[in-house]
């Protein structure tokens, strides 16, 4: 029996969280949890590194950019693929040199989300 894959959503906006959860649960092999702050999200990610993490850039306690930096600096989470979900027209974050990080603009295109999830989870 195959264990379900896990996704963690770090976003303080419950509308965004619910939308992502609904889009992701279309995949029966994916279990989703969420955190509403960067600190809570980092703790969850360190305790149980997810197979995929969705990250908002504007969190109440720290920026998504700092969350990403903390994850990449921690051996337990450095390998986790991250999808930054943002409404920013000009996100202040460099991901070109990070093959594990993707940008998904809002409004979320469901087809594009599925493609990103499929591509990320199909990696060995």
């Amino acid at each position, binding site marked *: 029996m195959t264990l379900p894959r896990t996704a963690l959503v770090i976003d303080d906006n*419950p*509308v*965004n969280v619910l*939308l992502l959860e609904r889009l992701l649960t279309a995949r029966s092999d994916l279990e989703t949890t969420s955190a509403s702050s960067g600190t809570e999200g980092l703790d969850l990610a360190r305790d149980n590194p997810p197979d995929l993490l969705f990250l908002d850039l504007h969190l109440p306690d720290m920026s998504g950019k700092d969350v990403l930096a903390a994850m990449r600096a921690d051996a337990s989470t450095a390998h986790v693929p991250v999808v930054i979900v943002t409404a*920013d027209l000009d996100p*202040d974050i460099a991901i070109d040199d990070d093959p594990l990080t993707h940008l998904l603009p809002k409004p979320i295109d469901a087809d594009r989300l599925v493609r990103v999830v499929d591509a990320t989870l199909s990696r060995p």
Partner: protein
Amino acid sequence: MPLEPTDHATTPIESARDLAELRRFCSHSLREPIHTIAIGLDLLDADDIVGEQREVIDRQVRDSVAGLERMATRLSDYLRLETTDPTEVRVGDAAAAAARTVAARYPAVSLGVDAPDVSIVADPMLLCSAFVELFDNAARHGGEGSICHVDVTVTAEDPGHVVRVRDRGPHDWLDDPSLVELFRHGRDGGPGVGLSICRRITELHEGSLRLVADHADPHVELVFAS
């Protein structure tokens, strides 16, 4: 020493920094709430969104609508600042009226304002509006049950008067003087209009807004020169 803001109201938006700031403003303050409202309304249409989940989504949508309304109101306040009608006005009276307005907004905050009973030449409504902006900044960060004290002093300056406003709230502009520019907001994520309104009011009185970035005594100076 006083920081000298640039005149954003009359300077074309041409620098890369201006554009980047506007893009950030549009992204976070406009696109995000619009996105939330659109998605939230779709979710509320779904039959399986019930109970507490429905309440949370409903509240988030309403908060986003209210946020956009507040921003539109603030921008309207700013854009209406075109003329002034200066007269002798008692600073203490204007400060007291502003304090009443702000206290009504934050009933859980105990707001105290000390202001001298002296007169300056200014538009009474606009002087009161400038005080409202500054007192609101002070009270907003206080939190429930907090005591917020604002001290207003006035000194004569040739020509006109300098009105100094001191409070113990956080002053994001100590680290970022550009917050006086329109749409540049601090850590509280407001629309970034309040200090611009204060500056515009002083400019309409042929004066200026000075942010005195003395870490031991940070305060705002409103110069009324007309």
